[in-house]
């Protein structure tokens, strides 16, 4: 197994305290930058050179995103928002980082704020992470006491305030403009772009939104160098250490760190990772990047590097690196129905194709699952999907909602047909709602 960087301190005694963080060399990157005469531009260049791409889902180059903040902001302040709204089904890596090593996240936020000349930063954390918010609050207080936050940090003249802001239950607030709206005290309904947040973001000011893991990576880019980061991973476009969230029918679900581009088979079966399928069952399907990513079949996970381009080549995506594993006993119709329930529940209701389309997909899938579907329903699922996405809506939520539908119908059509014809699952066992699938 490759060396742990992001998770190096997880499991260490008292890992949350600033005392142990400093003992382990914490805030060295901040000293390097603020006391070592780095300009914000130099830090941004390093991050660009590292090849760091956003770990929240979209995979946009972080350094490049930072350069979109206008040079002259016409007196407007610049904001950094740490996206800790981790809500993509199957994803639980940021929770671990915040709960176990909050200072790594905070140091990353301070560095990134310096790079974009931000004076006020917020951590937007999902409401359910009550523990994480409390831990971050305590860690922020420690950081203020040590002079890493507040006025004139380390005597550099740079000042930053950091505030934890709790969400209140809404998946869409993980979309960056939904997050911005929510932070402003509104419903989290995404904005039309352009203008992009880097130009007009929160409170009408230039704003950068970065994921928790992305920000944590910045610490290590400073400490170990952009070249180290760029060389870690499969290639320069898929670089750095990466956290993978494994859940579903494997022996050992959990968060695993590896160099970007780990093979799917290694993650599922490796002794250091998932340790194989529970009960020795076969793999039927794998969702590689959270509920929004297209499912892959067992054949497709052969030679499948888990990175941005590796999964794009398979017409799916790395997303938030949430790998959800389904064994041979899983009814794909039922899984698709469950995934569609999520999207129907979470649509923000702003755009008609999404507001209407997501509940329809769920209803049609539920009736096929319940044994009252018609053969034309299978085509109907595809027709509804194709009318929802590809630019029909303000944000990409609808594109996410149709990915599990189109991929499951496309790749497991026989199971859908069987469900309609026989009014029951093609697989015998494993259905968690047997009363629904008897004819």
């Amino acid at each position: 197994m490759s060396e742990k960087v992001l998770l190096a301190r997880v499991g260490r005694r008292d890992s949350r305290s600033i005392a142990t963080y400093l003992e382990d060399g914490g805030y060295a990157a901040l000293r390097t930058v603020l006391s070592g005469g780095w300009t914000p531009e130099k830090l941004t260049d390093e991050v660009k050179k590292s090849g760091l791409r956003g770990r929240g889902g979209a995979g946009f180059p972080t350094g490049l995103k930072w350069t979109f903040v206008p040079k002259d902001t016409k007196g407007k302040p610049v904001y950094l928002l740490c996206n800790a709204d981790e809500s993509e089904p199957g994803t639980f890596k940021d929770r671990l980082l915040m709960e176990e090593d909050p200072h790594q996240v905070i140091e990353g936020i301070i560095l990134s704020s310096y790079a974009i000349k931000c004076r006020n930063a917020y951590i937007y954390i999902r409401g359910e992470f009550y523990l994480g918010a409390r831990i971050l609050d305590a860690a922020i207080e420690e950081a203020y006491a040590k002079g890493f936050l507040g006025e004139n940090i380390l005597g550099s003249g740079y000042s930053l305030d950091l505030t934890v802001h709790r969400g209140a239950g809404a998946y869409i607030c993980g979309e960056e403009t939904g997050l911005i709206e929510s932070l402003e005290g509104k419903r989290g309904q995404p904005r039309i772009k352009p203008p992009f947040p880097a130009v007009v973001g929160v409170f009408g000011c230039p704003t950068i939104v970065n994921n928790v893991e992305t920000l944590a990576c910045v610490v290590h880019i400073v400490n170990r160098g952009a070249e180290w980061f760029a060389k870690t991973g499969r290639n320069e476009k898929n670089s750095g250490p990466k956290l993978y969230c494994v859940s579903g029918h494997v022996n050992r679900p959990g968060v695993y760190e590896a160099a970007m581009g780990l093979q799917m088979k290694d993650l599922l079966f490796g002794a250091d990772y998932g340790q194989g399928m529970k009960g020795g069952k076969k793999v039927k399907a794998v969702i590689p990047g959270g509920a929004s990513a297209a499912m892959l079949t067992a054949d497709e996970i052969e030679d499948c590097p888990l990175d941005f381009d590796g999964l794009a080549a398979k017409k799916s995506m790395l997303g938030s690196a949430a790998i959800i594993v389904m064994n041979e006993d899983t009814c794909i119709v039922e899984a698709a129905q469950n995934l569609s329930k999520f999207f129907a529940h979470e649509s923000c209701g702003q755009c008609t194709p999404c507001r209407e389309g997501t509940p329809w997909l769920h209803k049609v899938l539920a009736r096929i699952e319940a044994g009252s579907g018609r053969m034309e329903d299978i085509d109907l699922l595809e027709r509804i999907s194709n009318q929802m996405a590809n630019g029909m809506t303000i944000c990409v939520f609808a594109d996410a909602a149709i990915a599990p539908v189109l991929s499951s119908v496309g790749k497991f059509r026989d199971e859908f047909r069987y469900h309609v014809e026989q009014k029951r699952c093609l697989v015998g066992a494993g259905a968690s709602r047997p009363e629904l699938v008897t004819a």
Partner: protein
Amino acid sequence: MSDRRYSVEESGRPAEFPPEARARIEKILSRYPTKQAALLPVLWVAQETFGWISKEAAEEVARILELTPAHVDGVLTFYTMYNLRPVGKNLLQFCTSISCHLAGAERLMERCTKRLGVGLEQTTPDGKFTVVEVECIAGCDRAPSMMVNDTYHEPMDEKKLDALLDKLSADA
């Protein structure tokens, strides 16, 4: 989502924040450039103070933050974690999203509602429990995951659920 999420109920009593809650609100306001930005955190203070957010509490929040009551209602009903009516002492939240579903979350939730004799979004007559179904709570590696109020309980199974309900039922 239940239709009931769109209405904010009256409590029949004025909602006034006690001094310590007022102090928290002042501190929150100092962290934002606009009063409106304090809305979500102040609604959290309201929920922690009153247990749920009544029409009266929402109106009081609107007054403090200089917002229209309609804006506050719109926000309040958008987010699922604000309680729009009183809930039991223990809010049992069962995740049934994909990873928890693959681990049998629905069966667990059904076992709970059957044992307590209530449906989803209902409260037991003794006021001890309310059961709700929630979407992914980022406990997928410890599926099935659930929360009681602010605390995670994971991974769950039937035995652990029974023990948890026994313990919470016995608590005064």
